[in-house]
């Protein structure tokens, strides 16, 4: 294992944990996934190309490990999720966690897996659409359709603003979009 990969893994540890939790929606499975991903990263450290993004490589490996385990592990594939599980996923030491934030987290975690992981990579991890396509090993068009489906679902929940004045809502979006560009 190269020293640089170890250093990168240490720094990205919390993001990997968040990715694993978001994929599995279950702490025990997330721990298993994180451990297996770390093993795989260590085994493949020599394959990491300098000058490329470590986080993309790390998430791609985690995604692959997860998919392979899902295909093979019926137990894990059938685990269910309900909003109540957030108690296990979030910090029990902060019971006064912002209620709106919990609603948002719950809404995103309730999305189907394909939409959930795509939304996470784009809007939480900040990857471009193309980078997300590469991490998930899917076409760019699939990324966009997953985002579209996810956004339509979320727009009907706590993240949506379409229940009010549509024009004002879009104007607000345009302002935010312009700020990002």
């Amino acid at each position: 294992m190269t020293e640089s990969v170890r250093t990168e893994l240490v720094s990205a540890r919390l993001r990997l944990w968040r990715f694993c939790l978001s994929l599995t929606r279950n702490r025990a499975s997330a721990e298993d996934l994180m451990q297996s991903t770390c093993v795989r990263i260590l085994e493949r450290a020599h394959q990491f190309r300098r000058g490329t993004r470590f986080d993309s490589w790390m998430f791609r490996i985690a995604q692959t490990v997860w998919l392979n385990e899902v295909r093979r592990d019926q137990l894990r594939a059938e685990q269910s999720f309900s909003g109540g599980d957030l108690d296990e996923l979030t910090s029990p030491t902060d019971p006064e966690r912002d209620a709106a934030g919990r609603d948002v987290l719950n809404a995103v975690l309730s999305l189907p897996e394909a939409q959930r992981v795509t939304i996470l990579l784009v809007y939480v991890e900040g990857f471009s659409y193309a980078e997300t396509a590469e991490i998930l090993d899917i076409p760019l068009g699939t990324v966009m359709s997953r985002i579209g489906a996810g956004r339509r679902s979320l727009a009907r929940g706590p993240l949506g603003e379409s229940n009010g004045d549509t024009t004002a809502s879009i104007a607000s979006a345009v302002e935010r979009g312009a700020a990002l560009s």
Partner: protein
Amino acid sequence: MNSHLSDAHLIRFLDGRLPADEHAAIEAALATDPALADRLAALHVDTTAIGPAFETLLDNAPEVDFASMEHAADPPRESTLGRGRLSLAASLVVAAVLGALLASVWQEPRQDTPRDERWHADVVTYHKLYVPETVAPLEASVRSLNSQFERVANALSLDIPEALGRLADVEFKRAQVLGFEGTPLAHLTYQSAAGKPIALCFLKLPGAGTSVPVTSRQRGLAAVTWEQAGLGFIIVGDVDAKTLEALAKAASEAFPT
């Protein structure tokens, strides 16, 4: 009308990822095209709220001994387990070996294996991934215990005896719902006094009667299996058989016969 604009185009617009001229064109069209505004509204979410909400998941990350990771990548020169402290590095080595072992198991054809043997095998396989560090950080309060038992009870449509939360000589850690071939499966995790993870699992088994507990070794772990009141049970862990048999007896007595 701007019906030729794809959803992907509108998403890029909402995310501020369009070239300036295309962004301005859509912005101008919004003033005269209510259908376009409706399409945008259907896709519009406050994406700036997602990142902060996910920050909460950074809490409670498991402790990982990264300083020892270098040892995990290379074959250990001595038995790491023999040091008396199972660090993550050691568990990673164990996991790597187990991974290859489990992969070989999963690739075996299972069609001819009876269903009760398959679910026992899957539980044991799942439990093989548990290490002391998996269960040590879990803290079960009375409130969370009740909530977890309620979720399991609802999933299985079954009363879960409270006594399962206070079995002698082990610490209850967590109750969760897993599934086997479409059937909800209760998975209760305990920790022995020596820190070893133990799992008690049960599910509804059509045709299950009452059977005498059978103690066995499965994939290096002790296991006790039995049937009772229409349910199939297995308790498994890296502990001695007598300890496990006592736990199985206590668990069995908690349920109606």
